[in-house]
């Protein structure tokens, strides 16, 4: 009993429970064959692509900020790789470096604007989102004349970033696991993680306590833009092509995953494992419906309801967690 209570107090608890509820719903109502679902790679691939972006954006949200420009950074990463190495024929290393460099650049812009001005990061990243949407479209159309660009990558690049394990699992899953472990270590076992939580709690107090909030904010923005570009880059290598897009879908999916994962929008609360499970849960919700007999027309309704239930559960659990105090041993 104590163990379960202890588990329920962790930020990730609600997301794991959401996962179980979603699975139960799909199995009982949707007629899903769990074995088949478990063996399918599609939702794991989806989760990995989503999860890599959700990690740094989730950290930003724990720190009290938000980054919606990732929506345009994913196609920006793939288009950059494809144009440099596909259209212009430069070595794949240049294409990859270009995509990541673009991520760093946009992240710096976001971060600098965030720390130098009092403009809320929702608005800053909205501006960079719209701007990058235009950059992606213009670059593709004006440089290549096409809205999609083809790319062939050498074997080593394909092996590292773009091949399928056992014929169905994208290798980006491995990168997702590595990044999750890395982030979990930094956030939960080093002081940087404490700093992030402190910033989310109260930025001014954190600053006064000597935490380099500005530098940390900029680093987080650079991480989120670069991770998004990285995902785009892997997709370009995996699928041999890149497509222009506005990327609006990624934004809501990412935010939903993070919030389902137990991260508080107001900051200061959350965990990397929560974000991990949040991405998994969202992937199952969004892809799992294809395994059911439920009409696809209702899929958005299911996502909406699941989000509200998951967030309500998060709230309830968080209050329990914050109100918890160990029972004092009765005096002998």
């Amino acid at each position, binding site marked *: 009993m104590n163990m379960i209570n202890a588990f329920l107090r962790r930020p990730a608890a609600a997301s794991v429970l959401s996962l179980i509820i979603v699975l139960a719903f799909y199995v009982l109502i949707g007629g899903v064959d769990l074995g088949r679902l478990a063996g399918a790679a599609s939702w794991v691939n989806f989760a990995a692509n989503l999860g890599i972006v959700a990690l740094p954006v989730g950290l930003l949200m724990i720190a009290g900020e938000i980054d919606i420009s990732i929506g345009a950074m994913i196609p920006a990463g793939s288009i950059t790789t494809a144009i440099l190495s596909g259209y212009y024929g430069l070595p794949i290393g240049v294409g990859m470096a270009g995509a990541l460099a673009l991520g760093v650049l946009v992240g710096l812009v976001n971060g600098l604007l965030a720390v130098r001005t009092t403009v809320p990061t929702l608005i800053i990243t909205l501006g960079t989102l719209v701007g990058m949407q235009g950059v992606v479209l213009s670059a593709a159309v004006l440089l290549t004349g096409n809205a999609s660009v083809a790319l062939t990558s050498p074997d080593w690049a394909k092996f590292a970033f773009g091949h399928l394990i056992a014929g169905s699992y994208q290798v980006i899953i491995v990168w997702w696991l590595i990044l999750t472990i890395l982030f979990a270590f930094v956030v939960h076992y080093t002081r940087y993680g404490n700093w992030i939580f402190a910033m989310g709690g109260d930025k001014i107090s954190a600053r006064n306590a000597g935490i380099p909030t500005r530098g940390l904010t900029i680093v987080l923005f650079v991480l989120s833009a670069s991770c998004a570009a990285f995902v785009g880059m892997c997709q370009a290598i995996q699928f041999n092509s890149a497509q222009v897009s506005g990327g609006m879908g990624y934004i809501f999916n990412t*935010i939903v995953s993070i919030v389902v994962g137990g991260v508080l929008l107001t900051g200061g609360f959350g965990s990397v494992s929560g974000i991990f499970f949040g991405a998994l849960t969202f992937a199952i919700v969004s892809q799992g419906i294809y395994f059911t007999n439920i009409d696809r027309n209702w899929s*958005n309704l299911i996502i*909406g309801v699941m989000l509200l239930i998951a*967030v309500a559960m998060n*709230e309830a659990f968080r209050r329990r967690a914050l109100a918890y105090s160990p029972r004092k041993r009765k005096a002998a």
Partner: protein
Amino acid sequence: MTAGASISSNLGRLARRPEAGSLVGLIVIYIFFAILGGQVFLGAPGWSSWLNMAAEVGTIALPVGLLMIAGELDISVGSVLPASSLTVAILSGRWGLPIYIGIAGGLGVGLAVGLFNGLLVTRTRIPSLILTIGSMFGVMGLTLGFTIWIAGSTGVFIVPDPLTKTLLGSALGGMFQVGIFWWAGFVVVIYGLLHLSTWGNWIFALGGDKESARNAGIPTQKLTIQLYMLSGFAAAFVGVTQVITFGSAQVAAGSSFIFNSIMCVVIGGVILTGGAGSVIGIVLGTMTFAIVNQGIFFSGLDPNFGSIIIGALLLTAVLSNDTFRAMALSYVAKKK
């Protein structure tokens, strides 16, 4: 004090109003596109072109702006718009009910979603951003599911009667859509509410500090619910005018209004963290946004660059607003 000094101090006071930045921005943007667009842009076709766009996003931006002043967000407006259009089209187009029932149905959908949002925001501690994303998905799903179920396709057709078309869907001189006048009407009403009534003070107080407002006796919960119902109503109203104007409603409509309305509000000087802003500012911001969106097509610029320009404009506008706000807050009247 000499006359000159009093004029300059008045000017100084004027320049430090939050709307000043938006007005300057609007004028600069307009001149920029006027130079590029030439005669056509300066004439009635140009004016009506961006005013038509401004009317729609402006109607939604008003209550979204009020919500932002009160410290909340509403993402669901993007899905309420098609829900309302389709309700009108199905009720009055497909099922042949009288048009006022259709319109009432459409507006009712907006009010219902607003009520839902408002109740959940006030009764639970779910942040409004997340809550309204959830209701957005929910409404999108319901809209698609019901439309296909009832109509068999994603779009529904309606032929409005002449009176309704004139009131809600016609264009003066073939150019200026009626929506512009409805927007103007909304602006007057919302201005009165926000700046001339206690209700408005309550909204500012709500955005400043919710707890204090509550303790001061302001009915914050009721107020929040009213604001959400207002934004749902506005989105539904734009949905109604669109379906009456164009005679057709589609499920996949309205998504761009979410961020567009936020952009208009922010360009207009409303602080996202709440507590400050004005209706004039929102109107100026809406006009600026519409001029940029439309001006691109009048200029000789490659439309592919459109989004870059919009993004750059947004950032410039908020940065300049930020500067103006800093100036305003630091302004100290010169002592005599």
